[in-house]
């Protein structure tokens, strides 16, 4: 499952990042294998997702979010 599939408020752990395009940028903001994330909100009309990484909030477009494979914890 990827970040698009989870429910608001759900906590997950990153398994892998698929594709190389956004890997570095995701890494910079703390989204990497093993990182714990929480989905804070989802903007309407397939807008961006707001995700909590550590104490920081990050917004991801749906196409990037699709590349983040996660598992529930």
């Amino acid at each position: 499952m990827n970040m698009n599939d989870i429910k608001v408020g759900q906590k997950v752990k990153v398994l892998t990042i698929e594709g190389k395009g956004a890997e570095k940028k995701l890494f910079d903001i703390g989204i990497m294998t093993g990182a714990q994330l929480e989905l804070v909100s989802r903007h309407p009309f397939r807008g961006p997702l707001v995700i909590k990484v550590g104490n920081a909030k990050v917004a991801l477009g749906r196409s990037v979010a699709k590349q983040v494979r996660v598992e529930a914890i």
Partner: protein
Amino acid sequence: MKVIAIGNPNVGKSAVLNRLTGSQIFVSNYAGTSVEAARTRMIIADREVSIYDTPGVFSIFSNTDEGRTVRRLLEDEKPDIILNIVDATNLERNLVLTDELMALGIPLLILLNQIDMARDLGIDIDTRLLSERLGHPVISFSATSGEGYAEFIKTMEAKFAIPPRETDQDIIKPRVYSIGESNGQYCSGNCWNCSKQINECTSEADLQRAQEARIISNLVTNMTNEGQRLKLSRIQTWIDKPILGSFFLLFIAYLGFYTLLKFIQLSEGPINALLVPVGQTIEKFLVNTLPPGWFSEIIAQAVPEGLIIPFTIIMPAMLVVGLFMAILEDTGLLPRYSVALERLGSVFGLSGQGIIPLALGFGCRTPAIVASRIMPNHGQRFIIVTLLSIVIPCSATLGVLAAVIAAFNAYLAVIIGMMLLVFAVLAKLLSRMVPREEFIYELPPLRIPITSNVINKIKIRFSGFFTEVLPLLLVMNIAVRMLMDSGALEYFKAMEGFSRALFGIPGEALIAVFITIFQRYLAPLVLINLSLTSREATIAIAMISLSLPCLPAIVMTIRELGLKNLVKIIMMGLATSFSVGIFLNIILPQ
């Protein structure tokens, strides 16, 4: 002594520097980048310390304008100390950069900023242990309350007491890292050369650094209580609600537009009243000193005229937009706009926050070009400035256009339709050339803006008004005046046949299209004196409203994007205008 301040984006770096040095600030543009580096000075123990501010970076090896600026500063200035500003609420992520910096072999001083906010969140950081682990001094700091200031001064004084290089080298045992673009034979995969090839993905060294950062962060951090909820974080939860928050953000933007336009409107009278006598004095002086003739006549006319536009339009625009941008940045609201507007922007292939300068352009395009700094990268900025220059009609243009449309009974629907069509086509074409980046944004916590910080940011934005904008506008104004006075435009009348065949309008109407450079709202007025049919007027007006940027916009574009990009925009503007003319001439029935 030279100090370079480096930190992740959104760690409150400029607020820290403000707290440390007060508001003495010197702005310098770094060649080849769109990013400014500001320098401040402070006196510690009777010695002058220059502190260089840098744009926020996640890695000093990153292949962005920000990364390049930081690398160039490190190479050119050879700092004695790097002031690493770290966000205490996101220690783990921030330590990745610290780890990179440690390997440069330059003494580090780490400021753990926002320590007060970390405490409120229930995060307890053992600074002594952290300092031991890193081998560099760590100071808990709060830019808001000033906590840690005394300790910073004490640490800096101690740095003066001992020659820094000798002592520090024993402690840190530098690894083989180099920031130089051309590296020697040693390479551990951490030099700029190597990271250039792999900059799109993470390297082994990156992962190692991340792991090290996690270990250290876990070691020194204790989560005490649940943490109390701050009033601000409650507001933040509300603003970050997808729909409600978006309305709130749009309302704030509307307030900004309203203030700007009101300010320009209200300040124009008094500024004019002040400038007119000054202009008259200058004109008299010039007439008396210059040898009489065509040239001096033009200079005497163009110089006072050239003063009016920068002071009545550009100055208020730079000030008010500067103020709003500073507040939006300092509060942390700015990136929230990109999130809220992402969907809307993506319809046109634009980044969401582009909606802001575009909307502002309907008021006046000059501040809109300043506000295009909101865009995430140079390419996106170019798209927005191009659309502003060619398509978006400012309120002054709209007024005159409406009058001319009414006077000739031109086809309003055709003109509006043409503008929408050109906007959509141009946006699509341009965004093809500069593809949107993957949407990844950090949303910094909301903060109350610090006044001195805001003032400094306005200073930075306003710098260059007297040294760049004013002289440039004067020169351009003289040049345009000379062109108009020389009668060069009269030649277009001779192009009657060409103009008729291609666009279906008389040659004189074509002149108006070129006058748009001078002042866009002047151009339609040229049409009023001609006798045109509705069809001719429709084509001419459409060509005028989809053509070239006005003089103030041209000057701002040179300042913000450089001459080369301006030339590109002007070429595109001419191409657009001619295509519109030809297109309408073909489809409109005679």
